[in-house]
């Protein structure tokens, strides 16, 4: 009878403070994603994208790397929670997220004096619809008909980009007032 010996391949994970912070922010973003899924919306693809508020705040306070972690964790976990993982909606969401992260990476270097979270938010929202439409056109609906709704998506991106950006700016202001955790 073999004796019980401790595994030699045991992996010890010691999460750092950074990991905890990413997890906390990702959790907040996932909650917003799930809550948002309950809101009935007239058109598929037109969503407020409330989770992006969290990503904007993380971007401004902790930088792009951490924002990317939060954004991608949100896409993966959010889709798992909603039962959308690897469904078409998941890939659209992933493409939108990657595109908006790329744009945010560039937009965050715009002069802070003139361009605030609202700029970041609107630009990221446009990148999001751009990424989604690209995947939709190349893979899901290989027909130019998908572009018929571009004006609607663009208007939604402008509107929700503005609102999310304003909320993020206000949260950043409120956070700046109290000492960092």
């Amino acid at each position: 009878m073999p004796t019980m010996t401790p595994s030699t391949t045991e992996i010890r994970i010691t999460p750092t403070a950074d990991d905890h912070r990413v997890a906390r922010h990702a959790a907040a973003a996932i909650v917003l994603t799930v809550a948002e899924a309950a809101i009935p919306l007239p058109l598929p693809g037109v969503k407020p994208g409330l989770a992006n508020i969290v990503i904007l705040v993380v971007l401004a306070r902790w930088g792009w790397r951490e924002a990317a972690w939060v954004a991608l964790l949100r896409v993966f976990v959010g889709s798992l929670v909603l039962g959308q993982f690897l469904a078409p909606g998941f890939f659209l969401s992933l493409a939108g997220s990657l595109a908006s992260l790329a744009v945010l990476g560039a937009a965050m270097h715009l002069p802070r004096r003139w361009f605030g979270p609202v700029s970041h938010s609107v630009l990221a929202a446009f990148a999001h619809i751009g990424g989604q439409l690209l995947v939709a056109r190349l893979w899901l609906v290989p027909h130019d008909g998908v572009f018929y709704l571009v004006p609607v998506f663009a208007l939604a991106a402008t509107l929700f980009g503005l609102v999310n950006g304003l909320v993020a700016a206000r949260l950043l202001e409120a956070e700046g007032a109290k000492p960092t955790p």
Partner: protein
Amino acid sequence: MTKLFALRRWLAAWAVHLRVGDGLVLAAALVFCVVSALSLWQGGRPDKAIIKAGGKVFAEVDLAAPRMLEVPGPLGTTRIEIQPGRARVAADPGPRQYCVRQGWLVSAGAVAICAPNQVSLALSGRHADYDSLNY
């Protein structure tokens, strides 16, 4: 009045967070919305009129400038009027005048047929709307 004032204060509290560049980005976004709507949602606009007589294409006319066309048929002459963006059968020797009473054709895919005189007027565009679908 106080309500209006409160609303303005509330809006001002949000507007504090808008910077100059943000205004520019928003303006650019709105311009993109308008331009994309104008360019993508004009698919039904015709740019050409195709006139057939006796089953053969008699003329293909650009819908840019106004002009009058006289198309001969077995009963006589059908007169077709072209104006920028629209066209109609102005006069036809047929007995029931269906194609004349159709009036101005304004969207791509629209057709007026003067069957007795064997003349038809059809508008075509880049993205013609369907005039019929079947399986």
